[in-house]
Each structure stands twice: as structure tokens, then as C-alpha cells.
């Protein structure tokens, strides 16, 4: 019996190309300012038109400043790239969510606003010129990160030329211990299966732990599928998915919603689906997890020492030793945000830990909401006050210090406790900058302590 991946693939297959690849229809194309201008240019030069502008939506996230989003941006390159996207969208009839001229209040990280607006739906194929497009799989979509030439292809034809993927079922069963979050689960999965373990696979996440997770937690899991080499990650749609989508702006409304739910149920993996591989993870064994190296698979549980066999290049770059511990590492910067962990539940959990406490004097601490909507909800809940009173900076929506395309960046050899997704050399803007990936709660704890600590010690105080 088929998996959701196979069902969706079949429903969207246009034809087999002469090369043997499949021409796959893309149900939703999401576009942002950094990987699209060359694609729009290529479409124009060829005299093509955007084939399905009504199935294409755009926002600005990668380069936008988060200190002030008043237009024109102080950063002239950010202004130029945003203006180019505005022009391209206007010309093609594509709806754009951007601060300023268009007046939109729905700008944000593309993988945050897609689900938030109800654009992302189960059973869809989704493409976006960003590798973290896998995030949308949390709602049961099959979502591909693509390059700029493929953005051109999707603009021109609403299609991609792809080879099918195998499907690996990853069951996470049991109860997560207090202080252990979705981020720790996905870091553990990547550590176990390797940063290239998922090449050739779509990851289907299930099991009792995933079943109980909110959509936002599932997004954190699916988001980092690509860090494990899997281009696609997804969770089958269920009651949690339907409840999340109900009433969202672009979701089906009224009776159409009921009919949609029936189709969404039908397209999910059958209980007896056959998988190319299966892996089981015990949730109870997972600890708060931190990376020590230069790829997301190089991590340890907070109470664990770094393995004696650890990669020498990574250890040298990061300043760790084999057998040493990450706990106790002094940090310079704390970053809460990104498409991995910049949603409201992430900020709420961090605020719960921060409330009434102070950021260590030597730490620069940033909270960057994933979208303007996340920002509004946070304001209604009083989160900005909690963070700013503690000494965090509260910023506008964007990708910010996850990839440092704007002024939010590390300097020199700074160490950053980060809720983002990549600890690659140079990722956060300084060639020698060092990134420690962890959950937003762990980042909050590190910001307060000025060093990496086990968040569970602080949670005990919160509960007490």
C-alpha cells in the first residue's frame, strides 16, 4: 500500500520525460528575494511568462534588516533586492508579502508564513528556492528545496524534472522528558543517521511522540530533514493538522474544508504502507542536545562528553577537545529565531525561562520573530517586555543571524548559542565564528548563564 509520498507523487506526475525523470506539477511555489531575481531575469530573456502566478507567493526574509524595517531600508543592497522582487511580482501578478510599499503585514520567513497563512496544505507539492522548504512537510505536503534554475523552471512551467525518492519511516515513540524539545529530537535523528544518511530518501516521521506534537513542533523536525541529507521530510496529516488549518486565510473554508479533510485523510500513508527503510527512536533516551562541531550531526547530549573519535578539524575549529564537554562553554551571543525555531511556541518557551531573570552582562542576546504575525501574537502575550527587561534585543521578522545576510552577524571567533539549523564554518557571518545549535529554551538558558547549561536546572526553578 502506498505512502503519502507515493500518493502525492502520482497525483502530481505530468509525464515521464525522455530522460526518464518525472515531470512533477508544483502546487505551491514560494519565492523570496535572494534566490529569485536571476530566475525572473531568465524567464524574461526567454520571452516566457509566469505560468501560474496565482499558485505563486513571495516574501522577503533573507536579507531584510531586523533592526528597522522602514522603507527604503538603510542597507541599500537589501533595498535593491526587495525592490527587484516587488517589480518582478508586480509584472507577473504574484502576491507579495513585504514591508513598505505593498503595505503587507504578513511578511516573514517563507517557511513560517506559508503554514501561518494556510497556504501550505496536506497533499500539495511545494517548491521554494531554499533548502529548508522541507519544513512544510509538517502539514503533510511534499516540499522540495530547489536552486535558482529550478525556480526559473517552476516560474515558467509550474513543474520540476525530478527522480522519485525512497521513503524512510522514522518512528519516535514514548514521552519526551521535561526540557527536551522537538529540536533535540531532530538533532538526535541526524546524529544517529548521519548528515548524509537521508540522501535519496524522503523522511516520513511518525510514532507516538510525533503524533502528540503540535504542528509547530513538527515543523522544527521537518525543517532539519535536509541537515540529515533528506531533501523531503513529512508527517502524515491528522486531526492536529486539520485543527491547525481550520480558519486560516488561504485554507478551504466552510463545507469546502470538510471536503478537503476527506481528501487529506485519503492521501495519507496507509497503515500498512511499505517503506524502503525503517528506523525507531526512543524518545525517553533523548537529552537536551547541543552541537559541538561544524555540521549538525556533530552533537552530544548536554551531560555527555564529546566522543574520543571526534573529527579533529571540527574540534580544532570549535576549540573543543575529544572527551571534553560542551556544558560550561562561555558564549558571546545568543540567537533565538529562524525557520527552525522562530515561531510563537518557541518564543513562549524561551520567555518562560527568561522571565524575571537577566542576560549575562557579556552576552549579546537577540530574539527575531519568524514573521510579523508571530511578532503581533508575541506582543499580545507580553513577550517583548519579558525579553527586553531581561536584556534581549527584540527585532523585526527575518532570517537574521541564521545566515547573516544582513547586519546581524558574529564577529571574530565569537561563540553563539543558536536556535537555528546550521553550525557550518562561517555560517553566522564571521569566517571564524562558532555556532552551537540547541533548542530555544537551551539558548535562553545559555544567555542567562553566559555559558552553555542544562536548561532542566532552570526549568526546575520555574516549576518550583
Amino acid at each position, binding site marked *: 500500500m502506498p505512502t503519502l509520498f507515493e500518493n502525492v507523487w502520482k497525483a502530481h506526475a505530468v509525464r515521464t520525460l525522455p530522460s*526518464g525523470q518525472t515531470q512533477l506539477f508544483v502546487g505551491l511555489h514560494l519565492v523570496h528575494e535572494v534566490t529569485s531575481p536571476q530566475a525572473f531575469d531568465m524567464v524574461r530573456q526567454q520571452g516566457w511568462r509566469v505560468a501560474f502566478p496565482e499558485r505563486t507567493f513571495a516574501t522577503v526574509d533573507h536579507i531584510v534588516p531586523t533592526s528597522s524595517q522602514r522603507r527604503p531600508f538603510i542597507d541599500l543592497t537589501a533595498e535593491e533586492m526587495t525592490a527587484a522582487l516587488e517589480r518582478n511580482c508586480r509584472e507577473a501578478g504574484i502576491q507579495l508579502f513585504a514591508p513598505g510599499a505593498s503595505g503587507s503585514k504578513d511578511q516573514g520567513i517563507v517557511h513560517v508564513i506559508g503554514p501561518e497563512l494556510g497556504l501550505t496544505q496536506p497533499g500539495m507539492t511545494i517548491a521554494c528556492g531554499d533548502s529548508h522548504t522541507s519544513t512544510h512537510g509538517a502539514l503533510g505536503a511534499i516540499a522540495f528545496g530547489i*536552486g535558482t534554475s529550478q525556480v526559473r523552471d517552476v516560474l515558467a512551467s509550474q513543474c520540476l524534472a525530478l527522480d522519485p525518492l525512497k521513503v524512510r519511516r522514522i518512528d519516535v515513540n514514548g514521552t519526551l522528558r521535561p526540557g527536551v524539545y522537538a529540536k533535540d529530537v531532530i538533532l538526535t535523528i541526524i546524529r544517529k543517521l548521519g548528515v548524509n544518511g537521508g540522501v535519496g530518501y524522503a523522511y516520513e516521521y511518525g510514532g507516538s511522540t510525533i503524533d502528540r506534537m503540535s504542528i509547530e513542533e513538527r515543523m522544527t523536525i521537518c525543517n532539519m530533514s535536509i*541537515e540529515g541529507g533528506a531533501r523531503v521530510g513529512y508527517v502524515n496529516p491528522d486531526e492536529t493538522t486539520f485543527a491547525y488549518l481550520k480558519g486560516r486565510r488561504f485554507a478551504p473554508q466552510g463545507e469546502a474544508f470538510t471536503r478537503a479533510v476527506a481528501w487529506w485523510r485519503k492521501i495519507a500513508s496507509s497503515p500498512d504502507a511499505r517503506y524502503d527503510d525503517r528506523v525507531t527512536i526512543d524518545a525517553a533516551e533523548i537529552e537536551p542536545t547541543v552541537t559541538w562541531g561544524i555540521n549538525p550531526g556533530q552533537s552530544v547530549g548536554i551531560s555527555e562528553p564529546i566522543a574520543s573519535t571526534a573529527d579533529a578539524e571540527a574540534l580544532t575549529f570549535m576549540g573543543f577537545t575529544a572527551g571534553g564537554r560542551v556544558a560550561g562553554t562561555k558564549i558571546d551571543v545568543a540567537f533565538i529565531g529562524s525557520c527552525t525555531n522562530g515561531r510563537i511556541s518557541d518564543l513562549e518557551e524561551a520567555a518562560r525561562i527568561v522571565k524575571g531573570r537577566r542576560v549575562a552582562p557579556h552576552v549579546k542576546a537577540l530574539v527575531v520573530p519568524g514573521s510579523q504575525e508571530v511578532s503581533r501574537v508575541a506582543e499580545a502575550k507580553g513577550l517583548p517586555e519579558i525579553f527586553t527587561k531581561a536584556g534581549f534585543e527584540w527585532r523585526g521578522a527575518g532570517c537574521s543571524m541564521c545566515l547573516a545576510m544582513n547586519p546581524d552577524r558574529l564577529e571574530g571567533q565569537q561563540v553563539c548559542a543558536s536556535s537555528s539549523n546550521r553550525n557550518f564554518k*562561517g555560517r553566522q557571518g564571521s569566517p571564524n565564528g562558532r555556532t552551537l545549535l540547541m533548542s530555544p529554551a537551551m539558548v535562553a538558558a545559555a544567555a542567562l548563564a553566559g555559558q552553555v547549561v542544562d536548561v532542566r536546572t532552570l526549568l526546575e526553578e520555574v516549576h518550583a
Partner: protein
Amino acid sequence: MGAITTITGRALPLRGDDLDTDRIMPARFLRAVTFEGLEQHVFEDDRASTPDHPFNNANYRGASILVVNSNFGCGSSREHAPQGLARYGIHAIVGESYSEIFLGNSSVLGIPCLTASPADIRALQTLIEQNPDLQVTASVEAQSVTAGHLTIKAQLPPGVRDAFLTDKWNPTAMLLADFDKVRNVATHLPYVAGF
């Protein structure tokens, strides 16, 4: 365009697993609306911190075949990475394995990413390090790489290989060729037609 069957030239061995696209092309060079000039920034930070980086080595200047290890091009989907390599003069890559997105991005630029066994790759890298002037031939057709006395098996995903051999590696025209079928699939999808 044109069919791509073999690539011949000098080669550049670049050792290391999991070389991600942030290292190939740091994000600050994505701050532009074109791909122009990216060849100047390939591995810029690695080159600055490692004086004997192969991309700094004059012996490899003008090489057109890059020889890498496992999971090359992992991470960000930025096409700026293979665009930079292409503009630098790399016409083929031979390695142990690649991230899927990088392989796809390179293929549509006409850069075949051939895969060989770890032992064969190490042998090839050593041989080139010993003799940087060696002419290397990467054959998409024969699925092999030859350097002096050494010939190794080197594969491509079947669909990608066929696309190179039949001049179909830039797929846009093909995707547009039967557009009625595209519309037909769209109208049968309930979320497009309306639930």
C-alpha cells in the same frame, strides 16, 4: 546547450567530507541580483584561512575537473555555489557523493557530478597531487574517469546521465513542451480546482 559526453582537462583535488555550500560560497556573496563575479569568491573564507588550500595552489590553476569526497555541496540550496564553480572554470565534478540539491543544481548548469568509490577517489586525488599536469578525462558516456594509467568507474543517476547524453540537461523547454498535460494535472487536483 549541446550533449555532454566527456570532459577533459587538468583536475583539482579537494579533500574533505561534508563541504557545504556556505563554504563554497559564503552568504555575503549572495547579496546581488545576478550571478556575475561569483568565480572570485569560491571557497573565499577557506582559502583565506588555509594558505595551502588547493584553490590557492598555482599548480591547479586552469583545472576544469574537481575531485571531492563525500556529501559535497550539502546544506543550503544556493545555486550560487555551482554557479561560482562553473564560472571559475569547473566543468565536471568527481566525488564519493553529493547532496541531492547540489547535484541537481549542477546538472542544470551542465556540470556532471560523477560518483566513484571512496578508494578510487583517494587514488585519483593522490595521483593528481603527485602530477597536477595530468590530463584527466571524465566520461559521462562510458561512466568512467581516466587519469594516466588509472581508470575508475564513475556513475551518474540514470536520468541525469541520459539528459547529458541527449542534450536534455536544461529541462525548461521539455517542461513546457506538453503544457496541456500540465493544465490537465492542475485541473484534476482538488486544491487547485477548488474543494
